[in-house]
Structure formats: structure tokens, C-alpha cells
């Protein structure tokens, strides 16, 4: 079976982030990393390959600047066989719609049986890319999968909804986004990290995919940010490092606040 995983490079969630006051875009020049939620999608694909479908071929697909190749390698080290990286200056400033259009064009070309995404991106905390890509590809879609089972030209997925857990069955080819509880992604061993660079990498432009540059990037964005402001904060936060007395300090705080008597 042929599996594609959409992976995104995001600013390191543990580093401080800021938005450029001129362009109103996230400054992406700092320390970047593979979206942690996407590691669960990769692990899900690897488990399919190790289990029910050993002849599986895993392709990692990303949209991002050339520098995002580091995150592609990181994804490949975790278990991908090859990568497709759409890097084009005209793609810069893509919003959800533009990114979905580029991803869909790249995915269509690959003819995959299963397209996996993370539950959300750590920078934007949206969770709709799977639904958008599936619609553009005219494929069935299941989001937020807590488990995936393969069989008979279909995937069976358990997923949380507001009233409990649904079990749904989707025919393949289909698009599935996975919950961060679906598995525990492994950390790749050093040789896998070293070997990732030597796996086949395809770097494509928008023209290679036949994507109209005017429909994506800043030019094709459906949303526009006209200003930024500061939300109301919660107020003062006391943060202490535990030196063995943290519980005592917390209880003193709770007594002072009259939360405990």
C-alpha cells in the first residue's frame, strides 16, 4: 500500500515566537522543528508497514521553504521511504486554503491509498487541513483518529466526538488525521538520522505541479490579517522551580488566596 504523510515544519514550540509587525506573519527564521503532532502520523504509518502491510511505501510530503528539508529528514528518519517537498517562493504566505491546494496537487500526483495528517499544527493550532485536502481530492475523510485498523479496502477508525466514541469505516483511498494518543512515536536511532539524507528526495515547484501561483501564497490567500492586538491576560503568574519545597509553597499560596482553609 502507498501511504503519504503530510508534515509541517513549525517554530520550535519550546522557543519564544513572534509575529512580524510589517507582514503580520509568524517569524519563521528562528529554531524550527517537525510539528510534534505529525510524528504520530508517521508512527501510525510505520506500524502499518511493520504489521498488516509490509509492502507499504511511505512518502513524506511537505510544503515549505527549502530550509524545511531538515524537518523532512527528521520525518524520514522516523520511518519514511522518500519525500516530496514543494518549495517555491510563490508559496510563501499561503494560508489554510493555499496550503491545502498545494498539498492536494502533490497528493493527487502520487495516487496514494492512505493520506495521513497530524491532529493539528503546533503553531497555528488549527485542525482542519485534513478536511480541506480530502475535499479537494474528493476523497472520504476521517479526522482525530484514536486508532486505525486496515482491511478489505477500507480503514476502520475509532474517534472521539462530543457524545463519546464513534467507530467509522472509510473506503480507501482516504484521508485520516490522527490524535496524539494513537501511539507513542519512537525516537529514531542515530544511523536512521544519518541515513535519512540519502533517501530519495523530490523537490518540486508550483509549476511542476501545475498549480497556479496566483491561487496560493500571499497572492491567493483567502484570509488577510489587518492588525494585531494583545488579548487580556490572566494576570500575574507565580512560577517556581521545585527545590523540594514546592508543595509547601503551593499550600501557603492556597491559604493566602483562601482557596483552602
Amino acid at each position, binding site marked *: 500500500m502507498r501511504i503519504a504523510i503530510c508534515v509541517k515544519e513549525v517554530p520550535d514550540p519550546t522557543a519564544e515566537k513572534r509575529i512580524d509587525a510589517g507582514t503580520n506573519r509568524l517569524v519563521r527564521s528562528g529554531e524550527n522543528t517537525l510539528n510534534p503532532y505529525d510524528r504520530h502520523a508517521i508512527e501510525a504509518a510505520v506500524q502499518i508497514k511493520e504489521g498488516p502491510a509490509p509492502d507499504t511505501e511511505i512518502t513524506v510530503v511537505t510544503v515549505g521553504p527549502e530550509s524545511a528539508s531538515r524537518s523532512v529528514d527528521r520525518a524520514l528518519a522516523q520511518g519514511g521511504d522518500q519525500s516530496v517537498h514543494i518549495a517555491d517562493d510563490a508559496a510563501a504566505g499561503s494560508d489554510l486554503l493555499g496550503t491545502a491546494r498545494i498539498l492536494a496537487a502533490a497528493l493527487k500526483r502520487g495516487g496514494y491509498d492512505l493520506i495521513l495528517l497530524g491532529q493539528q499544527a503546533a503553531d497555528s493550532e488549527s485542525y482542519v487541513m485534513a478536511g480541506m485536502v480530502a475535499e479537494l481530492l474528493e476523497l472520504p475523510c476521517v479526522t482525530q483518529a484514536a486508532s486505525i485498523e486496515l482491511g478489505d479496502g477500507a480503514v476502520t477508525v475509532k474517534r*472521539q466526538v462530543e457524545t463519546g466514541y464513534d467507530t467509522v469505516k*472509510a473506503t480507501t483511498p482516504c484521508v485520516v488525521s490522527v*490524535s496524539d494518543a494513537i501511539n507513542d512515536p519512537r525516537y529514531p536511532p542515530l544511523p536512521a538520522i544519518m541515513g535519512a539524507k540519502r533517501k530519495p528526495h523530490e523537490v518540486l515547484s508550483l509549476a511542476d505541479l501545475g498549480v497556479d501561483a496566483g491561487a496560493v501564497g500571499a497572492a491567493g490567500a*483567502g*484570509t*488577510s490579517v489587518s492588525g494585531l*492586538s494583545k488579548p487580556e491576560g490572566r*494576570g500575574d503568574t507565580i512560577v517556581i522551580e521545585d527545590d523540594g519545597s*514546592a508543595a509547601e509553597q503551593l499550600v501557603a499560596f492556597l491559604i493566602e488566596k483562601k482557596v483552602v482553609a
Partner: protein
Amino acid sequence: MAGIAVLCEVQGGEIAKGSLGVLEEAARLGAALGEPVEAIVCGSGLDDAAMGALGGFGASKVRVADDAALASGIAQPVVDACASAQESGQYRYWLAGASIMAADAMAGLAARLGAGIVIDAVELHAEGGALVTRRSGLGDSVLAHCGFTTPVGVVVTRSNAFAATEGTGGSAPVERFSPSFKAYSQAVQLVGHEDAEDSGPDIGAAEVLVAGGRGLGDAAGFGPIEECAAAFGGAVAATRAVVDAGWYPYSAQVGQTGKTVTPKLYIACGISGAIQHKVGMQGSGTIVAINKDKNAPIFDYADFGIVGDVTTVVPKLTELIKARG
């Protein structure tokens, strides 16, 4: 393009509370923009009188797609229904609250219409004759004023951003329409459903909640959390990550897909603090966070944060609270 369509979701035979709040907010926006607001309801076996009551929450008309294909709460047939409604209605904006189904449906609709989409909007403003949302980002440290450049704009609002009132008791005319469904939209079938059992303690009523996340390590990690909650005379809450993993029951889940709670004290243990968790507990009186990563987003909205290991801090806290009797 004219008018605002609000996707109103049916959960357990009733319109979801979240949808009512969004509908009322849409009515305020519609008044400011001079745009009529229509409610779109998708389901099966829907009652006209119940749907007409959406008029009491600001809808000037209620358009109902009633079809067996819409019974299961699967999103893609709803995309087809919304696209049919759009064909005849030519709406300028689509709004929906943040449920699993509605977010997926709005994602599909935006893609089909080539419309810009804003996720997690916390405010809706009329500016220069158009809708400009406030979309918070970067762990809620900044509010982006985000509008649309496409003829149609799609918005999914943040959970609990707009609380519903009791409504005016008015009603609106109900019009039924028949969507046409795409083959791929019907390729996802609901084959089973487990209802969230509400057998555990009622976390909504507890004055103190001690909440556990994946940082507890495994299901057994909830033992010390339960002891701590008992010492406070409170209950245990959980994140989706641990509920999805089967460590703790669904009925204890707090957040976007789970419950919204407002205890006097919320102690988050080994919880990173994702927005989807935050929306369910940020109204708590005092928020305490215990996390070993000093950069965890939970510290941004805690009153008291401890950078430390839950396995050492929590048992000590339990002993101290027990000792106070």
C-alpha cells in the same frame, strides 16, 4: 453574496448549546452589517417546531436538510448540504461553533467554495462593512485581526467564546431543502458508537479538580492524582490525550470536545495546556500547574506554576492537605 449562514448542530435531538451562542453572535454581527442571518440545520427526523425556535436566537429563517444520510453526524454529507444551501442562498459568510463535526464540515465547505477560513475565532467584528474576526494565536499571546479576501468567508469559532442566552422565545419560518450527495461523501459509514458513560463523579459540580495529563506516564499514574483529589474533597479531571489512550474515562475529560468546568481550584498535573484543553477550564477560580517543562503553555494561564515532577510534588501536596484535615 449576501447574508450570514450559521450551521446549527443537532446533538441528541437538540440544537447544541454552542450553536445557539454562535447564532446569537451572528445576529449581532448581521445587524451591524445589515445582513440577514439564516440557520442551517442538518439531520434526520427533525421537528419543524423545534427548528423554528431558532428564530428566538436571531435566525430570520431556518433552512433544514432532513435526510437519512445526515443522521450519523459524519461531516462530509453535511458539506454537501451546506454547498446546496450556498447555491440557493449565496451567503457571504458561514459561521459554526467548534465541534468535531462542524469544524470538519466547514473545512470541506471552504475548500469546495475556494473560501478563506478562520479557525478558533474569539470575536466577530463589523469593520468597514465586512466581517473581521479576532483569531488568537501563539498560545493566546496575540490577537490577529483576520478578515477575508474571497467572496465567501468561513469561520469556526472557539468553544465557549459565545455563551447563549435563554433566547426571546420567538420563532422563524422553516424551509426544507434537499441536498444532493457526492459519492465520496458517503464513503464514510458509522459502524459503532459508545456513549460516554456518566457513571463517575460529576466533575462539573466539584469545587476542586485535580487534572491529569500524559505527563502522568501511564494509567497507574492516576492513583496519586485520585488520592490528591480525595484529600481536597474534589474530583479528578483528564485531558483528551489520556482519555483517547484509555488511561481514564471520557466522563472526566475537560476541554473543547469534553466538559467545561469552573471549579474554585483546578490543579493541572502533567498537562501541556493546549488551547483545546484550556477552553474547558480557563474559567476556574485559581489555576495551578505542575509540569516539568518550564516552557509548557499551561504556565501562561496558571496563577501558580510549579516546574517540577508530578511524581514527587503531587504526593507531598496530598500529605500536606490531609494533615490540615
